[in-house]
C-alpha cells in the first residue's frame, strides 16, 4: 500500500492517443499510470503510486484555457494527491504552456505541491519559472531517462516536506527567487577572488547576473507627415467612465481599445482615468491632458497630418509587471500595423 499519491498530467501524444490530429481531445482521467508515468512510478518506488493520469489535447487546452483548467483542477481534486506532476513536455511549446498553466492552478487552488519538466527553450519555462519548479530536460523525449530520476527525487522531497535546495543541486530551472544563505567566506574576500579571475581573463561567477532590459530601437522618422495616419496609445489609465474592461488601477493585466470616432474632444462625461499612481484630479476634469484629442482634431482639420485612427489604446502604467507590458505592446503593435498606422503618440504619465 503506497503512502503517497500522485496525479499525473500528460497530453494526447504521450498518452498514445495520437499526434496533431488528436490534439483537440477533451480532458479525461484514467486510473493509474499512463505512458511516461510508468517510468516515474517505478523510479519513485513502492511508497508512491500514480493514482490517476489526466490526459488532454494540446490544442483543446490552448483554445479553452479557462474551461480546461477548471475541469482538470476538479479531476485532480477528487484524488487528493500529495504531489501533482505534469509532463515532461521537453521542447513541445503548447504542451509546455499547458503543463505550467495547470501546475500553477493546482498549486494555487488546491494547495498541492506541483512539478513539471521542460527544455530551457520551451516558452512554458519563461512563463512559469517563477511560479512552478520546472525540472531541466533535453529538447526531445529521448532524454526522458535522464529527467525521470531528477523528477522522482523532487517529488519525494515535496511529498515528505523535505527542503528543496538550489536549482543547480536539484536540477530545475532557476526561478529567479533570491534566497539568503551563509557563504563560506565573506563578500569582500569573495569579491577579491572574483576580481583576480576577472583581471586574468579567467571564468568567474557573479552572484547576481544583471537583468537584461528589452530595449527597442526607435523607428525611422515619418517621411510624409501630411498623409500619415496617427494613433494615441497611453499608459495614463484613461478609460470610458464605467471602465467596461475593469482595467486595474495598478499592476494592470489588461489594456483597452476605445472608440473616438466622431468626437472632437475627450469629454469628462465620457472618459475618466483609473490610474492609481498620480494625482488624477486634473485628468478627470479634462481627459485631453492625457489623450490630446482636442488638439489632434484641430491639427487634423488643418492638414498638419493625414488622419487620426478612430480609437485609442490604453492601460495603467504603475506597478505593472514588465511581462504584462511587453504582451500589451506586442498585441497593440500588431493591431496598429494591420490598420496601417504610420505613427503613434505614446503618452505616459
Amino acid at each position, binding site marked *: 500500500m503506497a503512502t503517497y499519491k500522485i496525479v499525473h498530467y500528460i497530453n494526447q501524444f504521450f498518452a498514445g492517443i495520437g499526434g496533431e490530429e488528436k490534439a483537440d481531445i477533451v480532458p479525461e482521467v484514467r486510473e493509474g499510470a499512463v505512458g511516461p508515468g510508468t517510468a516515474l512510478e517505478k523510479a519513485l518506488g513502492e511508497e508512491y503510486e500514480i493514482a490517476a493520469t489526466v490526459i488532454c489535447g494540446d490544442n483543446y487546452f490552448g483554445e479553452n484555457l479557462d474551461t480546461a483548467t477548471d475541469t482538470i483542477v476538479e479531476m485532480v481534486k477528487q484524488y487528493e494527491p500529495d504531489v501533482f506532476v505534469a509532463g515532461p513536455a521537453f521542447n513541445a511549446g503548447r504542451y509546455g504552456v499547458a503543463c505550467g498553466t495547470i501546475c500553477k492552478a493546482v498549486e494555487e487552488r488546491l494547495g498541492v505541491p506541483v512539478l513539471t519538466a521542460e527544455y530551457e527553450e520551451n516558452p512554458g519555462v519563461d512563463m512559469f519559472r517563477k511560479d512552478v519548479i520546472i525540472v531541466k530536460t533535453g529538447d526531445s523525449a529521448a532524454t526522458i531517462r535522464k529527467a525521470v530520476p531528477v523528477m522522482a527525487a523532487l517529488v519525494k522531497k515535496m511529498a515528505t516536506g523535505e527542503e528543496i535546495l538550489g536549482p543547480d543541486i536539484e536540477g530545475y530551472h532557476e526561478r529567479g*527567487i*533570491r534566497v539568503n544563505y551563509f557563504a563560506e567566506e565573506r*563578500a569582500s574576500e*569573495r569579491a577579491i577572488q572574483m576580481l583576480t579571475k576577472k583581471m586574468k581573463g579567467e571564468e568567474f561567477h*557573479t552572484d*547576481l547576473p544583471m537583468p537584461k532590459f528589452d530595449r527597442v530601437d526607435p523607428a525611422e522618422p515619418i517621411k510624409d507627415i501630411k498623409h500619415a495616419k496617427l494613433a494615441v496609445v497611453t499608459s495614463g489609465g484613461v478609460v470610458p467612465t464605467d471602465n467596461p474592461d475593469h482595467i486595474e488601477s495598478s499592476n494592470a493585466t489588461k489594456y483597452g481599445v476605445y472608440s473616438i470616432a466622431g468626437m472632437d474632444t475627450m469629454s469628462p462625461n465620457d472618459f475618466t482615468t483609473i490610474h492609481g499612481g498620480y494625482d488624477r484630479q486634473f485628468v478627470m476634469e479634462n481627459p485631453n491632458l492625457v489623450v490630446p484629442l482636442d488638439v489632434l482634431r484641430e491639427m487634423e482639420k488643418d492638414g498638419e497630418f493625414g488622419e487620426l485612427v478612430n480609437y485609442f489604446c490604453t492601460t495603467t502604467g504603475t506597478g505593472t509587471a514588465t511581462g504584462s507590458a511587453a504582451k500589451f505592446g506586442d498585441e497593440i503593435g500588431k493591431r496598429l500595423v494591420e490598420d496601417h498606422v504610420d505613427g503613434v503618440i505614446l503618452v505616459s504619465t
Partner: protein
Amino acid sequence: MKLELGKIFIKDIQFSDQTCVKDHVLYVNKEEVEKLVLEDDKLLECHLDIARPGDSTRITPVKDVIEPRVKVSGGEIFPGMIGKVTPQVGEGRTHALDGCCVVTVGRIVGFQEGVIDMSGPAADYCPFSKTVNLCVVIEPKEGLETHVYEKAGRMAGLKVATYLGEAGRNVEPDTLETFETKPIFEQAAMYPDLPKVGYVHMLQSQGLLHDTYYYGVDAKQFIPTFMYPTEIMDGAIVSGNCVAPCDKVTTYHHFHNPVIEDLYKHHGKDVNFMGVILTNENVFLADKERHSDMVAKLAEWMGLDGVLITEEGYGNPDTDLMMNCRKVEQKGVKVVLITDEFPGKDGKSQSLADTCEEATALASCGQGNATLQFPAMDKVIGTMEYIENQIGGWAGCVNPDGSFEAELQIIIASTIANGFNKLAARGY
C-alpha cells in the same frame, strides 16, 4: 604610509572605580563616563548598561557602534571630530580594544535605527551579537531638533570610545600587525608583476541624516579623493547616518573595513593594493555625474588594473554604484561590485534599482527583505516603542509578549553592503 595596529583582546566589561584594562577585562568607571556624556547640555540623562554575547538582551534603537581605539603615536584618533586634524592619521601606532564596543542607544532620531539581539536567531545576522557591548543610553532634551540630537548622540559615542581607548594606551597588545601602502610610484614598483588593485569606497552622503564624515568634513561637500588605507583604521571616517539599519556602516565598520582588511591579506601575493578612492553618494545628478567621472579619472591616473566598489544604502545610491562601475570599466579597469539586494519579501523582484551592462561581477551581501521571527528577550536596553516604525517592521508586527516579526533590514549591519558578513543571496 605605515601603521602598526596592536589588538588588545577584551573578553568582558565590568563596572569599577577605575577605568582600566586588566587581564583582558575592560573595567569602566560608570560615573566618569556618564559625566563625560552629560558635558553636552543637549543631553538630559545618560545611563550605562552591559550586553554580553548569549544574553537574553535586545538593544534598540541603535545609533552607532564604535570600537575603543587610541593613537599611541602619530596623530589623534577621530581627527576632525575628537582629535586634531593634523598631523594626518594612518601612521605610527594604534591600539584597539578588540572584542568590545560602545553602542549608542536612545529615543529615535530617524526610523533607520535598528536592533541588536545578543542571542536567538537574529544574533546570527549581527556582528555585534558577538562583542561585549557597553551601551550608552542617552535621553535628549525636549524639543531638540533631529539634526542637533543626531550630532549629540554621535559625539557622545565618539567621546566615550576615545575615553575607553585611552585605557589601552600602555597595555601590551596581544597581536601587532603592520599595514603599509607606499606613495604611488614606489608602491607600483614594489610588486611590478602583480595587478594593481584599488578600492572605490562610496560614503553615504544623501543628506537629511544620511551623512558620513572624513576628517570632520561632511562627505556631501568633498569631491572624490585619494586615501591611504591605513587612515581609516585611525578613525578618519566616522558614521553620522541613519541609513537603513541592515546597511549601516557603523564607525566600527569603518575601523574594520573588510575590503581594506582583505586586500591587505592579498597584498604582495596576488594583488598590489594601491590605495583607496574615496567618493560619495550625493542625490543631485550633477554631483553623481561629476563624481563618477572623477572616480574613473583617479582609477585611470593610478594605473589600476582592477577595482572593488562598495556602496552604503540602497535605491538612490545604486545609480552611483552603476555609474562608477560603467565609467571605471570604460577606462579599461576591471570592476567587481559588492552590495546587498532588496528583491521583496518573496525574493522575486529586481534586486537593485539600477543596472549596467558592465556590472558583470557582483558579490552579494544577502537580501534584506527576507523576514525573521524575533523572540521576546528578558531585557531590553533602550526601548521597543518604535519597532513597528523602524525600517523592516510594519504596523502590527509586534506581539504583546515582546516578540515580533520583521525583515532582516531591522538588524544592525545584517546585509551591510561592504562585504563584512558571510550572508549572501543566490538564485533559486
